[in-house]
């Protein structure tokens, strides 16, 4: 599924835009001008990676500082143990589109339980 996110001009370098779908996806514009999309929810706990710190091609989670590689989704160190899902990005006529991955998301236990209708 192709989802329009925002216009490239509205997303300055170094910033992130959160797409409020379920589960949310975030689009990052790096200082080098590249655009990436990954699942917004940290795989450790319920934190928004769009609130995190972007440095190069990595975003640091705002709560416990695990870093995720925007290109591969890979995580560098605990407390998070699993990668985040990455999504393909297309820019057409100045508009950023996200092609949602078909893989299952790696949501943290608390969020996964909520989505499954169990206790939060």
């Amino acid at each position: 599924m192709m989802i329009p996110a925002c216009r490239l001009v509205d997303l300055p370098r170094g910033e992130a835009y959160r797409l409020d779908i379920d589960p949310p996806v975030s689009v990052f514009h790096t200082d080098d001008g590249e655009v990436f999309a990954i699942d917004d929810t940290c795989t450790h706990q319920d934190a928004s990676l769009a609130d995190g710190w972007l440095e190069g091609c990595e975003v640091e989670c705002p709560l416990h500082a695990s870093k995720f590689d925007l290109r591969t989704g890979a995580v560098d160190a605990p407390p998070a143990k699993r990668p985040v899902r990455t999504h393909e990005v297309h820019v057409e006529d100045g508009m950023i589109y996200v092609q949602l991955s078909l893989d299952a998301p790696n949501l943290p236990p608390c969020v996964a339980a909520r989505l499954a209708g169990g206790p939060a």
Partner: protein
Amino acid sequence: MRTVAVVGASLAGLSAARSLRKQGYDGRLVVIGDELHRPYDRPPLSKEFLAGSLAEADLALEPDAEDLRAEWLLGVRAVGLDGPQRAVRLADGSEVRADGVVIATGAAARTLPGTDGLAGVHTLRTLDDARALRDELTLGGRLVVIGGGFIGAEVASTAYALGLDVTVVEAAPTPLAGPLGETMGTIVSALHADHGVRLLCGVGVKGLSGESRVDAVLLEDGRSVPADIVVVGVGARPCVEWLAGSGIELDDGVKCGADGRTGLAGVVAVGDCASWYDPRAGLHRRVEHWTGARERPDAAVTALLAGGAVEPSAPRPPYFWSDQYGVKIQFAGHAAGADSVTIEEGARDDRNVLAVYRRSGHPVAVLGMNQPRLFMRWRKQLATAA
């Protein structure tokens, strides 16, 4: 270097072992830990694990596929270090000779004298502690938490959510005044009252009463607070007794340089047991937080492998988080020495503030309550300003 021994198999020890491999160390790696468990994460022990919403398997710090090519000696305690030989003596009589030693033995919960053997009295540091406490909390009743610091406050918050009747007793007039200062200590500890948890401040504990099981906490002002369960959350002491006689300088933990090096060549110390020199403040301090135990081993391992031939890079300002009553609390820097605190964002009554501590106008610390995004920005600013 052909053999490195890491003593302490928790966050700091695991982080050191990982750094060694990441930085290209290819020799023998021995990790010694006195708990039987593989490295696990402690913060959830007072939060999700205690609440029952996180399973034991989720506490593991190692992903399934990780292989550090290490020899794990678990369930065995180090009882001595021969400094010049760099030999770690173990409780079973054996020893591990190494070219490099990483001391990562952490800290142990302080207890109250005279409470040994009284059922219903708990401390909280290890997985085994957490299992025992969780089993009792599920029975409900009246919980008295001695100590209004972070661990005490988190236990109170978790127990409140489980439906217990909770009282927190704190000897200082303001809880958390040490780490947060008076103003913000008052605001954060007001979370207890917001949720109907009693907070008794400025009064010490004289002792506990009960025959085989605790039935009350006796206060110094003569009051007695009835209790079915008691949690003693009065801080932790560094686990460094085993280093006595090794030639390593001990001073509220292992005294280290700004990169974890001790006075003995080939020996570094990391995590809660280590008192690193802080070049910005010009003094040694022991930082008992998760992020320091996770990040500082990278620098210590660099120093160990280089044999002291590299300049230490200044570590980031200390950072910790806490979760209480559904509020995410984050703090970075040092509150001591600040001459002003201002709330820059949010309202104190909503408990969603971002507060900045300054000395002579310069930010030295930042506190966030439910402000992860802004907090992250301030934290980075602190790190670059320092």
